[in-house]
Structures are given as structure tokens and as C-alpha cells.
């Protein structure tokens, strides 16, 4: 660390904390998707198309998720309708 770094460092202080927070979010998100069946993205797309026939919704407004517990799997479909 050189003399001038002492002044420069003050601004972007603790970028490591930002890195940690961003990683925690993205890694948790990707782990959630990891265990999902391969057909899910395609199914989500088709469901989206069906809904769009009737209601104008965006890609992000339809969430499809499979939750597995010991005895059964639950397919969760979440559609945010335009207000």
C-alpha cells in the first residue's frame, strides 16, 4: 500500500462486504434452482403463453417452483396480475 492509497481507499471502502452480500444472494438463488427438474423453464414458458392469451403479463410475473418434501412434491405457480 503506497502513501497515496491511504487517501484513495477511503472512498470505495469495504468493497469486500459488497462482494459478500452479492454472493450470498446469488448463490442462494442458484442453489434453489439447482434441484429443480430440467423441464421447469420450458413449462414456465408454456404456462406464461397460456396466461398471456387472456391477460397481459411479463416474464417475471409468473413464477413456477417445485418444492419437495419427504412424502410429496408441490408445484407452486405464482402469477402477479397487473394492478
Amino acid at each position, binding site marked *: *500500500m*503506497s502513501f497515496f*492509497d491511504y487517501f484513495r481507499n477511503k472512498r470505495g471502502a469495504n468493497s*469486500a462486504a459488497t462482494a459478500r452480500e452479492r*454472493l*450470498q444472494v446469488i*448463490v442462494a438463488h*442458484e442453489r434453489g434452482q439447482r434441484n429443480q427438474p430440467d423441464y421447469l423453464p420450458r413449462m414456465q414458458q408454456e404456462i406464461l403463453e397460456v396466461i398471456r392469451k387472456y391477460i397481459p403479463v411479463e416474464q417475471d410475473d409468473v413464477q413456477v417452483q417445485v418444492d419437495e418434501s419427504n412424502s410429496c412434491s408441490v408445484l407452486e405457480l405464482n402469477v402477479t396480475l397487473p394492478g
Partner: protein
Amino acid sequence: MAKIIVVTSGKGGVGKTTSSAAIGTGLAQRGHATVIVDFDVGLRNLDLIMGCERRVVYDFVNVINGEATLNQALIKDKRTEQLYILPASQTRDKDALTEEGVAAVLEELKGRFDYIVCDSPAGIEKGAQMALYFADEAIVVTNPEVSSVRDSDRILGILQSKSLRAKEGEEPVREHLLLTRYSPARVAAGEMLSVADVEDILAIPLLGVIPESQDVLKASNQGEPVILNDEAQAGQAYSDAVDRLLGENRPHRFLEEQRQGFFQRLLGGGRG
């Protein structure tokens, strides 16, 4: 019983080959018959890092295709007893490594060696999957940097779902985190993820922390695994990691910023 250890990372350039060379050499130094297998078909580099690039005649793919015997393809290391290298092929055929072929070669290696260290190519494609498929243990090489940590997590997911052990429902692949290019000074300045941060995110046991060091480049320039350099911190850190891999207890070193004199700091010297 021979153990297959894959050195993997997802991301390229984080130090897989450097680590494979160091750890393989360290295992052999401790008296275990060891072979380091280069799985990076088309981008052979382990031979350069090990300093045996001019002695490559036959390679992994030649053995799979029956064009050479294992004995013809194995290169005996000149510095370390009980250490051999199986070089990758420089073919551009990405499908050269078949599952059956790799299985047969590994089976033969198991009869001769205590440790089979598989140096994985970068990525999550077939080559990387082949390198980890038969593994008993995995060393996940990670830099304290966002893209490397994320890719390591992806490769952990693949180990947990696509390895032979996962498919057969056997005991899972034993995972180890090897954090490389670590700079305590930058961590102290809040510019780099700390060991604790990476451990917390990846949630696998820590095998070792290799400090960022100019000796690593020097070692690769010379084709000598850095672990042979007793004076280098990186070499010592790899030695500790090998001891831990063998079940010994070693405190982690080089995690704290080394105190520098006032003038050194003023002149910006001594970093790294």
C-alpha cells in the same frame, strides 16, 4: 485402496494445475505412490508446470484408444520418487475421453498408485464432468473473488448430483476448499473476501489457504512445483494442505497481514 482426488474449480485461471502439481508432489514426497492425470484435452499444461513437456511421447487418449500402454504414456518425475504424470492429449476432438475409456485407465492406475490426482479442465462441460465423475474426494480451488466463488458453488452442485458416487447413492464425494491467491493485506483493507466469507458462502471444510505470491509464477516459469520451494510461503502453505489432506492437524498460516516497515509502506513495496 487407491484414492481418486479431483482438483476442480469451474472457473479457469484460479490455480488448478498449479495446485494439482503441488499436491501430487506433496503426496509423493510423503511416500505415497502418486499419479497426476491431466484431463484438459486440447489444452495440455500440467507437463509444463511439472517441467516434463519435452518427455511427452504418448498421452491419456493414446492409452484409451489402445495406441500405447499405460507404461509407455506415464512419465516418471525426475525430482520426486513415486511420482508420475499422465499427460493430456492435444487432440481437438472433445469427445476423445469416453466414460468407459477413462474408467478402464483409472482402474489400471488404481492397481499401481495410492493417489490419483485428476487435474480438471475449466468449465462445467464434459471434460470437467469426466474429471470429477470417478472422484472419491474433490479439492475445489477458489480465488477470493466473486466469479470464482460462484463457479465453485456450481461445481459443488455438479459433484453432488452428477458424480458416480452421487448416482450410485454411495457416500458423497468428500469436498475440500482450497483458497488460492489470498492477499491478507487486501482483506485487511476491506478489498478482498476473507477466508471466513468464502467458507461461509461455500460451506465446505477448508483444506488450505495459499497466499498470493511471486514464487508461484517463478515456479511455473521453471517447471518446478512450488511445493518444492521450502522457503516460499506458497510452498509451505501447500505442504500444510497436503498434511491436512492426509488427516493431520496443521494450523493455518499466512492469514494475517505481515507488518511492513514505515518506509516500505510509504514506497508501496512488498505487496504480494
